[in-house]
């Protein structure tokens, strides 16, 4: 028997301790690998939207990697804590520091390598499915199965490095500890913590700062990344304090109540209190993970449902053909477009003559033309008198400037009658439009201006027009030249939708990883003390604890540990969405739906963990 045998057996025989950690590592690596498979697909270069897919997958993969790093480091630290006693015994028998380091290093590498291998094998087997998913999300053809050597290479390289780093760091944590502390290990009770109302209030204050700042300083928060980060940290810190103090408070209140020494209650409560710090930490982390999962899905879903509306605020018309006066192909192009579109239900067409001040990107149009366009867009018409102007936004969400360059207008006195914040031309084409009374418009000094025609089209069910849009683009592509351009809301919608779908897809995968990690942490927390608990229940049974009471104790204890974080996470999500009211009202169904889905997942997890935990307590 050599030293290596010992290390090997130490891991292999302890597999049930590692299983949850192992599985969630496998799961993370698996997801990473699956992203990588799409990322490095050889067809990527030839398909449209390929670069978008590559970028989203890369972002997804980076997020998975970062998260894995945190998760793995945290788990290793928890394992070290769990194994303190054994490590102390090894040192007592005379294992040298070098041997201890090597043992921990090999252990990490064994788990890491087997996780990587398992994940990649599973990943290769499942890769046709993932490629199919990518294909569906992107709505493309091709993207067939291939042997993803590059993806395998990168996954092995990155995760092996990750495990190596962790394996290298983790033994350092032993450095300062004396053997006596290691051997005493879990017997060293935590310092009894006391509920402090002041600390609780401080934590609440920290949390309350967040909605307050969001309400009072929305502008600053939107612009300042540092501030966002601060708010985020404030939230994490505040939540921890409130969490810790509230649990303390509740447990202490129960303990002090007169009905405390009744039935199984003292056992449940004192069990929870005995490692209240570790329990709280675990519950807190689980809450954060669940919050991450919820937000990843709900927010991304909400974004992806508003694509059609967003698209039409960017491109108010379904098609806009913008043509300069010297464009000789105008008639030819318009005929092609007309032919394609005029069969559509609700087809309407409108021509907008615009005089353009090229330097400032300002357009001038007449009142009647504006009204024509506005009617098509279901906006209210305006009625200008002589010397009055209206200013129309050129960009989405940017309120146009009011001061007017009078030079081309030949008029000193102009009054701004209306400011219209909604653009009627494709966003960004103009900085703003100036609407003039029809007669004023004829008198405009055209010397510094160039003439353009915007031909606008709308029709119903335009989101279904994707195939025809592609065909139209193909016809016009080689044909259109620099004096004209075609803005297609259909095309924009499609691109936007695909990228939102991609984000949703990646968000969903991340959410799954978070949920797996949260279950893994709960399992790990329980397995850490399974020996002690087993002993305790054995003696309690000797004292006359019935099996029914045993079940009740475990049920309550696990329900507390698992369901409280879930409920808190749900409440926080609802609160956050309530703060952003319009989001909430527009998709209450979706939110309720996804929370129900998560609740089911969590409940299944609870029942499973409960079953296996009870089993492991009763056997052996």
């Amino acid at each position, binding site marked *: 028997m050599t030293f290596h045998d010992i290390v090997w057996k130490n891991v292999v025989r302890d597999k049930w301790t590692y299983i949850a950690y192992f599985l969630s590592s496998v799961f993370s690596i698996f997801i990473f690998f699956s992203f990588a498979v799409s990322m490095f697909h050889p067809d990527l270069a030839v398909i449209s939207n390929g670069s978008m897919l590559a970028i989203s997958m890369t972002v997804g993969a980076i997020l998975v990697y970062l998260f894995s790093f945190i998760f793995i480091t945290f788990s290793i630290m928890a394992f070290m804590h769990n194994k303190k006693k054994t490590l102390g015994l090894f040192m007592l*028998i*005379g294992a040298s520091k070098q041997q201890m380091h090597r043992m921990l290093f090999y252990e990490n590498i064994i788990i890491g390598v087997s996780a990587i291998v398992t994940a990649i094998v599973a990943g290769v087997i499942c890769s046709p499915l993932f490629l199919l998913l990518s294909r569906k999300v992107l709505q493309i053809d091709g993207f067939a199965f291939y042997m993803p050597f590059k993806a395998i290479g990168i996954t092995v390289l990155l995760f092996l490095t990750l495990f190596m780093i962790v394996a290298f760091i983790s033994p350092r944590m032993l450095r300062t500890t004396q053997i006596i502390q290691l051997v005493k290990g879990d017997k060293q009770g935590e310092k009894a913590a006391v509920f402090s109302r002041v600390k609780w209030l401080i934590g609440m204050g920290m949390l309350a700062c967040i909605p307050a700042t969001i309400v009072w300083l929305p502008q600053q928060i939107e612009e300042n990344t540092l501030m966002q980060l601060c708010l985020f940290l404030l939230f994490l810190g505040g939540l921890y304090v409130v969490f810790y103090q509230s649990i303390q408070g509740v447990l202490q209140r129960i303990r002090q109540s007169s009905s405390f020494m009744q039935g199984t209650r003292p056992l449940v409560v004192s069990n929870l209190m005995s490692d209240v710090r570790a329990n709280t930490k675990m519950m807190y982390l689980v809450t954060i993970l669940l919050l991450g999962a919820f937000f990843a899905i709900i927010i991304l879903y909400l974004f992806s449902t508003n694509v059609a509306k967003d698209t039409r605020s960017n491109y108010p018309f379904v098609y806009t053909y913008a043509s300069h006066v010297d464009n000789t192909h105008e008639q030819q192009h318009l005929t092609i477009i007309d032919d394609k579109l005029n069969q559509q239900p609700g087809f309407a067409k409108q021509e907008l003559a615009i005089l353009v001040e090229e330097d400032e990107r300002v357009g001038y149009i007449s009142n009647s033309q504006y009204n024509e366009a506005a009617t098509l867009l279901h906006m209210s018409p305006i009625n200008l008198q002589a010397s009055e102007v209206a200013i129309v936004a050129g960009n989405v969400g940017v309120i146009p400037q009011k001061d007017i360059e009078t030079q081309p207008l030949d008029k000193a006195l102009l009054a701004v009658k209306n400011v219209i914040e909604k653009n009627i031309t494709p966003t960004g084409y103009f900085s703003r439009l100036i609407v003039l009374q029809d007669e004023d418009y004829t008198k405009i000094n055209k010397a510094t201006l160039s003439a353009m025609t915007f031909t606008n089209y709308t029709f119903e069910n335009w989101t279904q027009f994707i195939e025809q849009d592609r065909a139209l683009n193909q016809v016009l592509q080689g044909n259109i030249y620099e004096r004209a351009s075609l803005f297609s809301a259909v095309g924009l919608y499609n691109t936007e939708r695909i990228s939102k779908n991609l984000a949703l897809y990646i968000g969903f995968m991340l959410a799954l990883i978070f949920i797996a990690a949260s279950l893994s942490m709960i399992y790990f927390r329980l397995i850490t003390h399974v020996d002690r608990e087993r002993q305790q229940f054995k003696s309690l049974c000797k004292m006359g604890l019935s099996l029914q009471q045993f079940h009740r104790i475990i049920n309550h204890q696990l329900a507390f540990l698992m369901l409280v974080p879930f409920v808190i996470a749900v409440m926080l999500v609802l609160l956050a969405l309530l703060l952003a009211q319009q989001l909430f009202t527009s998709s209450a169904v979706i939110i309720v739906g996804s929370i129900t889905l998560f609740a089911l997942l969590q409940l299944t997890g609870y029942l499973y963990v409960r079953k296996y935990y009870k089993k492991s307590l009763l056997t052996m």
Partner: protein
Amino acid sequence: MAILEVNKMNKTYIGKVNYEALKNITLSVEEGEFVAIMGPSGSGKTTLLNCISTIDAPTGGTIHINKISPYALKEEELAAFRRQQLGFVFQDFNLVHTLTVQENILLPLALDRVAQDVMMERLAKVTTILGIQHLLTKRTFEISGGQAQRVAIARAIIHEPTLLLADEPTGNLDTKSVKDVMQLFTTVNQDMNTTILMVTHDAYVASFCQRVVFIKDGEFYNEVYKGNNRQQFYQSIVDNLAFLGGVTHDFS
């Protein structure tokens, strides 16, 4: 020759209230001796043993084991010293639960990179002395408390340590197992000439030794030698305990 020499040792636990657990303890154990330490609960027995076994540093005084002062050694040397010179048996936590009985016993040799054939030879020797050959392939949770204690003893002596240290090795055993284990200690002491220092609460257990050292409130109190008459020895142990105000059976 003195294997263990403890000279004016002090141990103060630093905490909110500092507590002086050992005061000026001086103790010498000869090669091949079998010594018990007794005293009331909280008198500092475990603390003394921990200091000697190099797992908790004393705050004053000196310790020499086989003429070496372990606390002066460098970290790697200390590990080697533990590996080669010391053996430990504790009351409860002794075995690595992921390893089998055989692997647990061989652990000190594996750490010291002893050759395979030497390992097997020594294993055969200690397991025959202790009568645990049939347990070798079992896991630690498949054996009884008394058996586990024997395995722990096997592990503590397989590398033929200069000094064997045991803290209440019979703490949770039944009368029959207590007797077995104590006979084993005696056998190990006589056949392998291993020096043994053990802590116990039990006068019967202590009567297997050649000398009993009593401590009280962290100070040396008295010592009695066995001489020829075991019955008389037992009686004087009981008397001393009564004087100490300790109880022979406590339920801590």
